[in-house]
């Protein structure tokens, strides 16, 4: 699975995800990638792309829930750290239920990622920031 989230100079956030799914899938199995709100989400402030065991991301409506939780936390305690806390909380919830994977997101243009696997191919960059690439924790 691959995912890209950008905020352009007009301030518009766009998220996209694409995948081949899971090896040896049967019966036309579809995971979270094409399910808006599960594997991909974008609103006025937040954009997210996910990768993981799709069934959990669908059942927990992960992408939209994390963005909504980030918004709620930002209203309570300010935007700083709100998105990271929301993402971390959701990944912990997924893990507790047996689901695993990771997410990348932009919240108000700030990069956030969270995963509950030791490795995820990920990278971020932005105006006034240095490019950053990581694969492992």
């Amino acid at each position, binding site marked *: 699975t691959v995912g890209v*989230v*950008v905020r352009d100079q007009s301030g518009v956030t*766009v998220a996209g995800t694409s995948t081949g799914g899971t090896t040896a899938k049967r019966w036309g199995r579809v995971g979270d990638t094409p399910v808006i709100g599960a594997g991909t989400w974008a609103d006025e402030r937040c954009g997210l792309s996910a990768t993981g065991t799709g069934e959990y991301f669908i059942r927990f409506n992960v992408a939209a829930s994390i963005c909504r939780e980030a918004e709620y936390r930002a209203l309570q305690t300010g935007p700083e750290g709100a998105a990271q806390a929301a993402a971390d909380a959701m990944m912990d919830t997924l893990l507790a239920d047996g689901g695993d994977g990771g997410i990348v997101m932009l919240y108000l243009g700030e990069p956030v990622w969270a995963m509950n696997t030791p490795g995820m191919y990920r990278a*971020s960059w932005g105006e006034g920031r240095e490019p950053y690439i990581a694969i492992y924790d």
Partner: protein
Amino acid sequence: NDWSIIIHGGAGVIERGDMDAQTEAAYRAALQSALEQGGAMLRDGADGIDVVEALIQAFEDDPMFNAGRGGVFTADGRVEMDASVMIGSTRAAGAVAGVTSVRHPISLARAVMEHSPHVMLAGDGAEGFAAERGLELADQAFFFTERRWQAMESQVQRMGLPVPPRPEGAPDPEPVNEGALDMMEREHRFG
């Protein structure tokens, strides 16, 4: 507004020891190239939707990633692809599921968003819409990679299922280094 970009190439139980230096360098180079292409487009004032489509098309063409060419195989030996895209300012969204003959599923997802009243199309219907919109089509051999095929073979044998025939036009079998196979086994769990 300041432009910003974040990308992922999938997740898996990848232990540091699983990936040899050459493979890691190749993945880092692919991520670097995507960042540079996206950053340049955004710096030049491109619309976010154009940047997302362009970068994901590049990933879909890169056989290292589980999307488009290099996608994993189903138990009956096909590459079936899913994609979606969403624009935050309008909540416009498009998605496709289970497509097998479209070179860039992300472009088909965008076409659904921009040229249909729907959000998601699936299977044969999505393929028909792609043909109507004149999207670039490709046969199953185009998406074929040996390492993904062998990963599927070992998975279906573990599931007690028959190994399906190789797709028409696929290259002859070739050896794949075991280490890479193991890693893919883990990768498959995460799409």
